[in-house]
């Protein structure tokens, strides 16, 4: 089977660390946009975190928003560019920590934007601090003795918070740990983009992603850790808008 990554992401090289999952997610977005004939139309809003590195290495028109605020910026863009796909591309820290209020209210209002959350279990850009998604016992730079759930809570699962919102268009979690899961995650993104283009409302796809630099693991060990540990807390699947 002939295959080639889209020119929207291969025209230069990315600045992500070796084994970083951002590069995997970015290619899935580029493939779906190519398949839907929307590569020239996609408008993206990135966070100041590691996702901001995309500015240099994808061809999509991009706005860089303050930390945790890509969603409201995307909502604003969507209001004036109604025919374009509008994506907020953010990390788990941005989506579920500092930007939690924004994420919550976009979901409550059922804003017609597509949010893609790269969940790598910590704050990547700033050196690997504990996030709401960090696992119990996880050693991070701000929990050197392991995350204590009594102090910092259990890992935040987006389906617990938004799974009951009946109006939202799509809510799903995929993983990027192997080729089969990459295919499944791509199908989730395709479904989300279809619903988004049909104006059905709020779509959020979370992707479990390696950050070998800050987990302090070699890339393959990071992939194993996601499959063996992270997935215990973060089940994969479609929580809204599946079928």
């Amino acid at each position: 089977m002939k295959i080639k990554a889209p020119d929207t992401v291969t025209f230069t090289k990315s600045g992500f660390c070796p084994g970083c999952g951002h590069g995997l997610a970015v290619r899935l977005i580029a493939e779906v946009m190519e398949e839907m004939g929307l590569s020239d139309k996609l408008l993206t809003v990135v966070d100041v975190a590691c996702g901001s590195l995309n500015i240099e290495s994808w061809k999509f028109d991009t706005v860089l928003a303050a930390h945790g605020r890509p969603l409201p910026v995307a909502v604003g863009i969507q209001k004036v560019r109604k025919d374009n796909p509008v994506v907020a591309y953010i990390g788990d820290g941005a989506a579920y920590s500092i930007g939690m209020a924004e994420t919550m209210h976009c979901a409550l209002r059922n804003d017609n934007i597509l949010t893609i959350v790269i969940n790598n279990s910590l704050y990547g850009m700033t050196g690997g601090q504990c996030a709401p998604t960090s696992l119990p016992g996880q050693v991070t730079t701000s929990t050197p003795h392991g995350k204590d759930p009594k102090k910092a809570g259990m890992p935040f699962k987006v389906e617990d918070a938004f799974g009951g919102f009946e109006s939202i268009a799509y809510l799903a979690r995929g993983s990027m740990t192997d080729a089969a899961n990459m295919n499944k995650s791509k199908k989730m993104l395709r479904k989300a983009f279809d619903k988004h283009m049909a104006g059905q409302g709020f779509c959020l796809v979370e992707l479990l992603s390696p950050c070998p630099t800050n987990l302090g693991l070699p890339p393959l060990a990071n992939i194993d850790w996601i499959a063996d540990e992270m997935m215990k807390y973060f089940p994969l699947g479609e929580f809204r808008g599946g079928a």
Partner: protein
Amino acid sequence: MEKLYIEPDRCKGCGYCVRACNKEALYFTGNVNQKGYDTVAVDDEKCNCCTACYRMCPDYVFEIR
């Protein structure tokens, strides 16, 4: 005949492709690229162009044509 092509200068040596390949067709060469990463190569005899390496590559090293 389809064939797997590799762009070693894009490679960051993560090894996801080596694991993804069921045919054990990919291997590290020990040759470092301009950025200093160990890069991969393919044994064409073993490769059946299944695309698994392409799907797991965060740096778009692979193309099948």
